[in-house]
């Protein structure tokens, strides 16, 4: 079976027409994982029993001639920050190394409700904190395109699983770029929806005003199908919006001629690799030749996005991660004599270095005497960053930028320098802060054959337009 060419529609219709079975598709992917994943490290846990049960259910539907749901029989994988009932969910952390959730994340339940077969849980940076997947407590993930390089992060396992044909699509999460940047590094499509578009119920919280769930896929159409499946109001998440969900798939076919695409000089400045710049500029020319109008826009506060992000995200994380205390679930240190010693030692032994660094930074930024200078200041600059986009979107329908300033870097290259690692997110964090949607699609390769990503940013709840532009580019390129 040629797994590389499988998409949601081709997999589903092959099962529907009895050319193959959901069981055979799942087993072919497990065989691929068995063969490839020792080198790559994309999976932390396989959920075979659950997958085969679901595959069997889909196969019985197909045998009875019933129409399959949109993801019927499609093998998928889930970033290990989304809770799965009865299947270990670690968030890439030792502190949750043995945690087995008693309930399902809404996005996962919706995927399964639409017929998807969940193969397993994908590796990630601990609590989704990282840009290289080297912060996983279990192992680093290697980029399938070059095993000496990182797959990006924090959804590195989800991106690598798609790139290496170990799943047709995956779910990831994006707080500062964690879907789009690894998609860019691994040469796949990655979509971060608008804040509130997709329920986060059952997502292990990192920074609640910034966390998003979204798909990683081989094609823009597959990303659109998954988005349509997981979007919409969920009573279990008060931040999920009651905004109607359009049919993202039929919207793909609308023409792009006449759309206005903004290009901001702030995304093409110092630090942008020449090969990435060249590929992105060529992609913009291609979009122009498809009839889009290219309009210069300004996003003047862009240089302040990374410092703003690292105050807000860490402040929220310090509060969210306070729940890991060794009492109700998770790791507890042995041989402790008092409650406070139990808290401190469990957290010290359970959390990795980057997580501790962020808890410390966030706690510092929220502490008495520093709140106004750091946390409140960052919230005010966040307003300025959001206004930049509001201004720009008065003039344009979408904004095109590089996804990341460089292609995939080497394993170990930035792991000793937290600040250098943070700058890998320089083109992605602002969309998270403003809550707007963004997609990364492949737009060429470097001389060393490393993928380059084009990012398309859109207005709140206007995923349809960025998907349409991405689809038009994908088809032309």
């Amino acid at each position: 079976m040629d797994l590389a060419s499988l998409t949601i529609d081709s997999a589903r219709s092959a099962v529907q027409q009895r050319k193959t079975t959901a069981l055979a598709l799942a087993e072919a992917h497990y065989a691929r994982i068995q063969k490839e994943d020792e080198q790559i490290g994309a999976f932390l846990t396989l959920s075979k029993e659950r997958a085969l049960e679901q595959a069997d259910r889909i196969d019985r539907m197909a045998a009875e001639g019933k129409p399959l749901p949109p993801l019927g029989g499609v093998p998928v994988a889930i970033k290990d920050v989304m809770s799965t009932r009865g299947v270990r969910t670690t968030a890439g952390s030792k502190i949750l190394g043995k945690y087995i959730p008693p309930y399902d994340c809404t996005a996962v339940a919706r995927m399964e409700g639409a017929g998807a077969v969940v193969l397993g849980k994908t590796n990630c940076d601990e609590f989704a904190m990282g840009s290289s997947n080297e912060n996983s407590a279990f192992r680093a993930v290697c980029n399938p395109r070059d095993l000496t390089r990182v797959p990006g992060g924090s959804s590195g396992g989800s991106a690598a699983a798609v790139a290496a044909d170990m799943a047709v699509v995956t779910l990831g999460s994006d707080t500062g770029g964690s879907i789009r940047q690894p998609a860019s590094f691994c040469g796949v499509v990655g979509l971060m929806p608008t804040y509130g578009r997709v329920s986060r119920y059952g997502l292990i919280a990192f920074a609640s005003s910034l966390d998003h769930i979204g798909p990683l896929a081989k094609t823009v159409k597959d990303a659109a199908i998954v988005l349509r499946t997981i979007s919409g109001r969920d009573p279990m998440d008060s931040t999920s919006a009651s905004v109607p969900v359009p049919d993202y798939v039929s919207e793909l076919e609308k023409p792009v001629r006449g759309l206005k695409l903004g290009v901001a000089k702030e995304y093409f400045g110092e630090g942008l690799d020449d090969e990435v710049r060249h590929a992105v500029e060529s992609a913009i020319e291609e979009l122009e030749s498809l009839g889009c109008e290219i309009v210069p826009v300004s996003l003047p506060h862009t240089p302040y996005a990374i410092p703003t992000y690292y105050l807000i995200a860490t402040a929220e994380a310090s509060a969210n991660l306070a729940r890991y205390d060794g009492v109700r679930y998770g790791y507890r240190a042995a041989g402790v004599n008092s409650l406070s010693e139990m808290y401190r030692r469990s957290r010290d032994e359970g959390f990795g270095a980057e997580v501790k660094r962020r808890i410390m930074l966030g706690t510092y930024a929220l502490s008495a005497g520093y709140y106004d200078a750091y946390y409140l200041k960052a919230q005010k600059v966040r307003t300025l960053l959001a206004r930049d986009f509001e201004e720009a979107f008065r003039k344009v329908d979408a904004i095109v930028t590089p996804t990341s300033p460089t292609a995939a870097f080497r394993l170990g290259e930035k792991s000793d320098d937290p600040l250098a690692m943070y700058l890998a997110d320089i083109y992605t964090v602002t969309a998270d802060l403003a809550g707007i949607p963004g997609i990364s699609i492949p737009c060429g390769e470097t001389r060393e054959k490393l993928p380059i990503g084009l990012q398309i940013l859109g207005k709140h709840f206007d995923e349809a337009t960025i998907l349409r532009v991405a689809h038009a580019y994908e088809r032309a390129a």
Partner: protein
Amino acid sequence: MKVTEKDVSYVADLANLELSAAEHAGMVRDLNSILGYIDRLNELDTSKVEPMAQVLDRYGVDESRQGSERFAYANREDVVEGLRESLPQEVALENAPDSDATFFRVPKVIER
């Protein structure tokens, strides 16, 4: 140096983290490096800018109205929506590092 060793000890205490001596030294270095970069926010005059606590505050807000009326878009009927049953006690205790059949068990809280 903005962040001293004493600051790190104080913040670690607030955060319930017990840092080793090596972690402590690394933390002083890293926090100073990151906060040095963060200081560029002071280039911006934000004295007249409202803080943004979260995204949905901006989406659909009616600026022409006052107080909580500005957020009328987010109103909903005061009815129980989608409430699920609580976890049964034995399920809630399944992941606990230590428990009896009824309670989570922890080391002694009050020292004599």
